[in-house]
């Protein structure tokens, strides 16, 4: 459903050229939940921006549902790390906005917003302003707003990174439940290994400088997943595996040589 072919991104800083990303080749099937794991600076955010159409690749193409990506579109909904809701509108008005832009009437848009807010558990806060909400609530609202676009792909850029550990756990469980119900294709960026394992059908590990795919692992944990899944023993194996990959892939790893290679 998503084809990333030979995508790379080169930046020019002054008279130096820095290859931040690529080349990347990746295929994502419809309805898959793919998590992208990587250290800071590995270009995973740039990749997401390219998928979203906010940045153009220097080489290669991205095809979504057979169409080449040339710019942003409602079929690919983006969720950022910071909620980016409009602070001058209430939560409900924020979630209703995409429908209004599409030409729906105020009543229709409001109805749709109410449904989505109920789905993310924010019905009680429909008339609150974003400034009154906590981080977790804001991210739920942001997710509801993105869903209002009726996208076929959800692009999530470390959406739970700014939340406290407990809220993060709760949001992960809610997200996987929501995904289970909607069947959307999701590409989720994170640097949290446990999060990547819990959420993904596949974990794509990226290394830095230049950002490249270092591993692409299928996660064999049963679906649907919930809090009990986190107790599965296989998670430790995956953790070890990815931890090692990340360490090797991280530029800092070059200086630290560890003779004892991960023996479980």
């Amino acid at each position, binding site marked *: 459903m998503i084809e990333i072919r030979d995508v790379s991104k080169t930046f020019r800083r002054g008279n130096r050229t820095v290859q931040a990303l690529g080349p990347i080749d990746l295929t994502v099937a419809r309805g898959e939940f793919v998590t992208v794991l990587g250290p800071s600076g590995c270009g995973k955010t740039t990749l997401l921006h390219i998928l*979203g159409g*906010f940045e153009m690749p220097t080489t290669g193409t991205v095809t979504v549902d057979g169409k080449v990506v040339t*710019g*942003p*579109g*409602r079929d*690919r*909904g*983006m969720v*950022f790390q*910071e909620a*980016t809701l*409009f*602070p*001058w*509108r209430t939560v409900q008005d924020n979630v209703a*906005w*995409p429908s209004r*832009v*599409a030409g729906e009437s105020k009543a229709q848009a409001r109805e749709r917003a109410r449904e989505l807010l109920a789905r993310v558990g924010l019905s009680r*806060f429909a008339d*609150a*302003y974003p*400034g*009154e*909400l*906590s*981080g*977790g*609530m*804001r991210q739920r609202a942001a997710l509801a*707003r*993105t869903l209002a*676009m009726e996208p076929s792909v959800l692009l999530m850029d470390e959406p739970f990174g700014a939340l406290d550990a407990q809220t993060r756990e709760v949001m992960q469980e809610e997200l996987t439940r929501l995904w289970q119900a909607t069947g959307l294709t999701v590409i989720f960026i994170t640097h949290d290994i446990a999060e990547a394992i819990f959420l993904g059908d596949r974990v794509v590990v990226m290394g830095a400088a230049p950002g490249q795919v270092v591993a692409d692992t299928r996660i064999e944990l049963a679906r649907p997943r919930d809090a009990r899944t986190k107790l599965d023993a296989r998670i430790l194996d995956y953790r070890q595996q990815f931890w090692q990959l990340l360490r090797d892939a991280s530029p800092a790893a070059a200086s630290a040589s560890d003779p004892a290679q991960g023996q479980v």
Partner: protein
Amino acid sequence: MRQEMRPGTAPHRAVSPPLSPPAWQEFVRQRPWLVTLAFVLACLALWELAAARPGRPEYLLGPSQIFTELLALTQGGGLAAQVLASLRRALLGFAIGGGLGLLLGLLAGVSRNFRDLFDLTQAFTHPVPKIALFPVVAVVLGFTDISRVLIIAISAFFPAYLNAVNGALGVNPRLFWVARNVGASRWRSFWQVLLPASLPRAVVGLRISLMVSFVLMVATEVVGHSNGLGAALMRAYREGAYGPMYAGIVCTALCGMAANALLAQASRRLLAWQAHAGGHLG
């Protein structure tokens, strides 16, 4: 006599509870306007005393005299007509200059092309004292209402423009990404994202523009034949009629205060969402 210390008991020392502030202090703290009022009254009283001293120069008037003068002018002196004429100029100039400044400022904030095009012009014209431009404009348009409103508008333009640019530059670029994601047109993004997002900053500029409008209102009325508060003020000065002169000054000040208060109220209402901050829900 030595007090016997039994195990398990601590020496009992009488500790008085922290003193609560006297009742009148609490009363005043909950009503801050009382302090302001007291201060204003004290100033007025001092002024009145100074003006009542024998041997004071004739051009120094006390508040009570000014007040009587003001009353007389309102009833018989056609003060209302002057106020209306002046306010019309000031507010029209403010609306045109401030409005244009706001919109062009927002445009300059988001469009590099427009900024490159326009910024040099405005940087060049800004430092020029606008009242100095009045004779220039008057050569073409005469000392008319149009030329006055034009000068007022030009002066009101710059504070609005600069703050609007600042406001626009300070907007989180992700908000525009959201707009593009949703498929909003540039027109919609301008009015529904850029404007509200920049407003807190831009409004500061408008407040300044309003004050500048009043200053230029008086300044333009002082030159050439005109009606209005500024003209009346100048006429009174030239005739040595200090009573009406002071009354005119006070009247102008009151108009400015009223206009400012209205704008402040309006902006408070527009920016009501800012008050809802703290992230305490959920």
